[in-house]
């Protein structure tokens, strides 16, 4: 602690404060990690002595991005230890990636990675494809996740390691796809069926505690590089919290980290869940680590027809004519979880991909509000994207957060796969962001990384404004253009609103005196950038509590 008035002073900048009044500042002074002065150049005059002074040279500064929905650890571990490829890769390109990886992997070693595009599940669902994967891997076990993270493509050795034979029954809420003639598993595993092979891989190649800390640390470094300074892990197991707490104890955190403790085992990560996990949460609470949420997986995803809808899916041979999907809990079961969570002071984040799941989650929240009255606790509907018109108002009425993720509010392969499942008209009533905003809902942004290949907020920010694919894919197409939002609103969704959703807005999420100096320096002024270039925004520097944790070189 120095005796000077400030440790760090920023001047000559375009500082967008997100303070609720649309205010801009030119300069800011930081002491002991907190903002002590912000405003025009004159406000920092008494602070420069003894402080590091940064001339921003007119660059735009804004609060650090808050990501209310990611799987930081899985992504970090995947980046460090697994095979990563983009879901836009073709079938042949995926096989080539596996072939390259196999060459660097010892015989018998697992090849784990992703993500393949969920739109070519049909292509993978055959014995020929499985044989091709066997050959590419040289017989090594392979486990490849799709871009929704709910489904897997595995090969013969992986099926054998997991003990899956043609006699293995489908698990509840999951399916082992099979060759229609022989009944042999093709290697495509839907939803909970993924757990068989995930568990086998996890047991065969567990990470050491040091590797686990590396995974969390690497994830935060990636997040910082995109401008993120706070995140909420949407399914945080005990070893993930331990990794974060381990880093916090070493003073190596570069983000605020919230944790959602899964109520039930998600199927791709393993260990204590529910009450057992809640019972140990306090030992992982740290200065920067908050285990204050519970996660419930209420349904699956639309392309795999595992999401729960009020109206039926388009008929197909497997599900017949009137299949709506199903939720995994009843309203009274949800009510019990949410009621118990409130007794612990915890919020609940409920995965709801279909409108029936959203409806059921809102019903449960309404019951809890009726019994418990108003609360400061924030509950989240995750992936709030297919919502019945009459339920949109209820987000605001019940104070429920609309967690917007993954970043697919524009044409993507997932939208195409969703059209096949729901029909074009319904599939395009996707992400009613404008309606939610008009209804007064608290909307908060997430990435769902690694479901999104990168936790890239700039892609999401452009997409929320244009409703077109920022990469240039699907040219000339947009998704429900009327639901576009303006930049000011979108930046709130990515900063202060997300901080409110995590209940950390008292000390971060905007640039105001008294709050921590969690901010980013950008390569451009977003308000002077054409909409279609917003995704190209690069973060030059990221500061967490006044300390530089990322600088672009």
């Amino acid at each position: 602690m120095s005796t000077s008035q400030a440790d760090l002073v920023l001047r000559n900048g375009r500082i967008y404060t997100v303070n609720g009044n649309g205010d801009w500042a030119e300069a800011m002074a930081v002491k002991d990690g907190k903002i002590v002065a912000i405003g025009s150049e004159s406000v920092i005059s008494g602070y420069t002595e003894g402080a590091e002074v940064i001339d921003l040279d007119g660059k735009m500064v804004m609060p650090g991005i808050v990501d209310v929905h990611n799987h930081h650890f899985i992504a970090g571990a995947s980046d460090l230890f697994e095979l990563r490829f983009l879901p836009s890769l073709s079938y042949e390109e995926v096989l080539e990636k596996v072939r390259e990886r196999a060459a660097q992997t010892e015989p018998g070693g697992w090849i784990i990675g992703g993500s393949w595009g969920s739109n070519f599940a049909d292509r993978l669902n055959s014995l020929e494809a499985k044989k091709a994967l066997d050959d590419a891997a040289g017989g090594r076990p392979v486990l490849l996740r799709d871009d929704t993270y709910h489904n897997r493509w595995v090969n013969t050795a992986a099926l054998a390691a997991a003990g899956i034979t043609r006699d293995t029954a489908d698990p509840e809420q999951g399916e082992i796809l099979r060759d229609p003639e022989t009944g042999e598993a093709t290697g495509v595993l839907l939803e909970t069926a993924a757990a068989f092979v995930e568990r086998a891989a996890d047991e065969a190649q567990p990470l050491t505690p040091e590797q686990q800390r590396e995974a969390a640390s690497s994830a935060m470094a990636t997040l910082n590089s995109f401008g993120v300074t706070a995140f909420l892990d949407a399914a945080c197991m005990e070893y993930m919290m331990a990794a974060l707490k381990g880093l916090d104890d070493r003073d190596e955190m570069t983000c605020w980290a919230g944790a959602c403790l899964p109520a039930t085992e998600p199927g791709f990560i393993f260990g204590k869940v529910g009450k057992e996990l809640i019972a140990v949460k306090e030992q992982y609470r740290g200065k920067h680590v908050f285990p204050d949420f519970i996660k419930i997986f209420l349904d699956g995803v639309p392309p795999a027809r595992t999401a729960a809808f009020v109206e039926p899916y388009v008929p197909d041979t497997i599900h017949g004519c009137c299949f709506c999907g199903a939720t995994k809990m009843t309203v009274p079961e949800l009510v019990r979880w949410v009621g118990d969570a409130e007794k612990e002071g915890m919020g609940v984040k409920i995965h709801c991909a279909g409108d029936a799941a959203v409806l059921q989650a809102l019903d449960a929240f309404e019951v809890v509000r009726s019994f418990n009255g108003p609360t400061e606790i924030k509950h989240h509907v995750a992936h709030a994207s297919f919502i019945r018109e009459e339920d949109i108002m209820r987000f605001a009425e019940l104070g429920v957060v609309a967690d917007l993720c993954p970043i697919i509010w524009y044409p993507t392969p997932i939208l195409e796969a969703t059209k096949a499942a729901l029909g074009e008209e319904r599939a395009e009533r996707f992400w009613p962001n404008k309606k939610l905003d008009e209804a007064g809902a608290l909307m908060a942004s997430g990435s769902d990384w690694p479901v999104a290949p990168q936790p890239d907020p700039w892609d999401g920010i452009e997409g929320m404004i244009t409703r077109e694919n920022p990469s240039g894919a699907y040219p000339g197409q947009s998704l429900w253009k009327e639901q576009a939002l303006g930049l000011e609103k979108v930046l709130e969704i990515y900063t202060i609103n997300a901080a409110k959703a995590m209940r950390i807005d008292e000390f971060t999420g905007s640039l105001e005196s008294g709050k921590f100096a969690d901010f980013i320096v950008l390569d451009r002024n977003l308000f002077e950038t054409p909409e279609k270039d917003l995704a190209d925004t690069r973060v030059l520097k990221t500061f967490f509590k006044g300390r530089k944790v990322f600088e672009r070189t």
Partner: protein
Amino acid sequence: MTSSQISPDRSIPVTVLTGFLGSGKTTVLNRLLSRPGLDGTVAIINEFGEIGLDHLLIEKSEESFALLDNGCVCCTIRGDLSQTLVDLKTRFAAGELKALDRIVIETTGLADPAPILHTLMADDTLIGRFHIDGVVVTVDAVNGAGTLTNHAESAKQVAVADRLLVTKADLADTDAINALIRGVRAHNGTAPIRMVSNGEVGPEDIFELGLFDAAGKSPDVERWLHEAAAGAHDHDHGQSKGHGHDHGHAPEGAHAGGHAHAQEGGIRSYSAIIDDPVDWAAFSHWLELVAAMRGDDMLRFKGIVRVSDHPERPIVVHGVQHVFHPPQMLEQWPSDDHRTKLVFIVRDIPAETIETTLAKFARIEAPRLRPAAEDGRHLSRVNA
């Protein structure tokens, strides 16, 4: 939950006798078991030595089983309660027991009676074979008021009682007894209270308190509500009237100190009468929600419900905390009064919460709760 009908002929009534340490429970049991004509009664007790029945023992066939000279059989628990009960049925079927008409279970003084009641209501091996006849709770006229104030276990025992026996009434003065009754009423506004001197009780004080009377017709709720009125009239003279309906935000006015103090524990009784028929699906959904949200605090709930699908055949509901007895449909109404009646004994649940959630989720129009002990003769009526 589905409505089911259980023949009272086949199901054996079980009385749970509880009471705080030193409240005279064992004396009551000793006097009861010394009465003639208890053939067919089985008492499940903690230990033989404790109740001093040696002089009555005819035959102690094995460590945990004994026959008394009045025909009563005493046994101690082996394994768990449900196993012990199932074992009695087996012995009866095998002819080892001549008769098995009713059972009384003595609990330890510190026991929370709720788990025993849950076992009796919800254990698959017991449903349809045994049912709760009643919960009888002893409170001590000399020390009871203090015990109630200082021990949460005692307060909970009183709250779940169907009948309260005030013991050692001969040893306490009128003021002490009145103070105790006020304290008891604060926790349980409806259970009939009987004064007991020298442990003298008869079977009529203990048995046939349950959902069905001996004739299998009169649900206890009727009697409960009736007694609530009488009880309030007899014992609550000090209570203020006409202050309207209480929303549970503050202790009711004009009570004696002991009463007010008990109120701080937050245990209250409420009742409601509903004129219009009730949508059973919505009502049972509401029961599930209450169990999920406030199960721990719904100490006792009873009701007789007029359902819209079959208004001539009421459904009897009965719950202890988050466990509800399978609802039972009666052949007919036990009296001319065919209105839905609900009684709640709750801890820290405002009446308003019950009212708003009943309206919202059970779709009952403007339900109004009254403190059950306030004045049962003026139980609220919807649209009145």
